[in-house]
């Protein structure tokens, strides 16, 4: 699309018309947010222990780069491992409960009840079982992110058109045939769509657990920074989390487009 814009733009046009504003918009809005934040701090003269200006936060990132980098990698690691387990387990459980109406009816209330439990309340239990460190963080990330995957996969399977099923069953198709030929491909857009939700939730899980029960990770770094009133470092941690979240979300969105392009035909045909 961008290639097309560049080709069609004649060199004689003024600069403002040659810029692809839609592509530029995310960057402009982000810069705008930081500028507004900076201005707010200057106008209200808030002390850095309450709300540090973004310039002060960036300064903190440079200053504490080594711990920030290590802890960011740690958080990314626990999150992705927890997320990966959630993908495998979520897909498996989703297919399992989408398989039959009885399993669906039996497990669904349990799943909802389980999902309603605040995961932060589970962290102490996980600590009792596994001690503090990476394992509770990975498990919390997994527990919080697998529910949307299960629900979406099961929904995809449960919404097969009855006519399609009739056509195939009349030909002698077994349940497994219908699942392989129709159910699973059909639920893939739901599955990949849910990954975007799940990955951001996984960050919530891992950081909550690191904050409460770990000696590593951004969660731990922010809670120790807070106890030392190093508020710019807390904000630096938040910023790093936001960056990691956006990067992983973009990765999931890209995978979604690659794998299930047929489900996004309206955007493809443009």
């Amino acid at each position: 699309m961008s290639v097309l814009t560049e080709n069609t733009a004649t060199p004689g046009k003024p600069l403002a018309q040659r810029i692809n504003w839609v592509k530029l918009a995310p960057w402009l809005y982000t810069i705008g947010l930081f500028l507004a934040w900076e201005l707010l701090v200057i106008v209200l003269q808030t002390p850095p222990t309450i709300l540090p200006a973004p310039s002060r936060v960036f300064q903190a990132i440079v200053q504490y780069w080594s711990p920030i980098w290590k802890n960011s990698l740690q958080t990314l690691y626990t999150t992705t491992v927890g997320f990966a387990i959630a993908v495998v387990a979520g897909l498996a459980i989703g297919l399992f409960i989408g398989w039959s109406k009885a399993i669906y009816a039996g497990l669904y209330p349990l799943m909802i009840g389980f999902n309603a439990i605040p995961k932060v309340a589970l962290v102490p239990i996980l600590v009792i079982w596994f001690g503090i460190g990476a394992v509770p963080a990975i498990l919390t990330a997994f527990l919080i992110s697998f529910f949307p995957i299960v629900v979406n996969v099961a929904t995809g399977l449960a919404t097969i058109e009855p006519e399609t099923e009739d056509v195939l069953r009349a030909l002698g198709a077994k349940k497994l045939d219908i699942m392989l030929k129709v159910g699973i491909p059909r639920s893939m857009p739901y599955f990949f769509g849910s990954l975007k939700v799940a990955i951001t939730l996984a960050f919530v899980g891992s950081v909550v657990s690191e904050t409460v029960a770990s000696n590593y990770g951004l969660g731990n770094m922010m809670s120790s920074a807070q106890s030392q009133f190093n508020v710019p470092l807390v904000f630096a941690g938040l910023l790093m989390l936001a960056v990691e979240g956006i990067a992983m979300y973009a990765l999931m969105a890209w995978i979604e487009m690659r794998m299930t392009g047929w489900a996004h035909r309206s955007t493809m045909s443009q």
Partner: protein
Amino acid sequence: MTHLVSIDNVDMRYGGAAGTLAVSGLTMKVGKGEFAAVVGPSGCGKSTLMKLVTGLHIPQSGVVVVAEKQVTKPVSIVGMAFQNPTMLPWRTTLDNILLPLEIVERHRHRLRANKKEYVEKAEHLLETVGLKGFGSKFPWQLSGGMQQRANLCRALIHEPELLMLDEPFGALDAFTREELWCVIRDLHAAQGVTIILVTHDLREATFLADRIFVMSARPGKVLKEHAVPFARPRDLEVMYEKAFNDMVHELHGEIASARVVA
């Protein structure tokens, strides 16, 4: 004439002993190679009829015999097409048409080794229905009429002895519908397949069928059976003859009174 489909005094009730009785005392025989149409007021159990013949439902009483075998499980000698084309959007039109071959027992083990032969057959079918060269397109790139043509190809690819059509042209505009009538007429003439067409359109039934069954309101049974006298091959012009209109008129009267009784 030997009967390919024979339904004898069949009752079918949904949802247990107290459920709705969909058809009751249904008796119907369709000969091999015949084109039968089933018409009737809405809710007369036409869809139930489809499911009984294909073995998706097993009746509580009475006997359904297809190809000299009593139906106790899905019979794989049928092809089905519904009003909704139900093409799978992640497969190309050609792969959609090949789908039944991946299911039917007698083809699924041969498919991989004989792919070329099957693809040729599918492309020949596509040509027959006027979709030559559209095999590589995805279903959502085709119009409604084209999807329904592809749907017919999918119903025919495994060379079924019996083709069950449930209002296949219901959602199409009048001109496309007439075109597809001719397509299905020619397929029937060329392949000698037995067809049962369930429809609301009396002109469609009269134009296409050899025999028309008029069903009563629920619980459905056959009220009347008509042999359609017009010689084959029929041209669309036949619809403007007086005898044709009289027949449609008569059918209309019968269904109207069946509705009143209900």
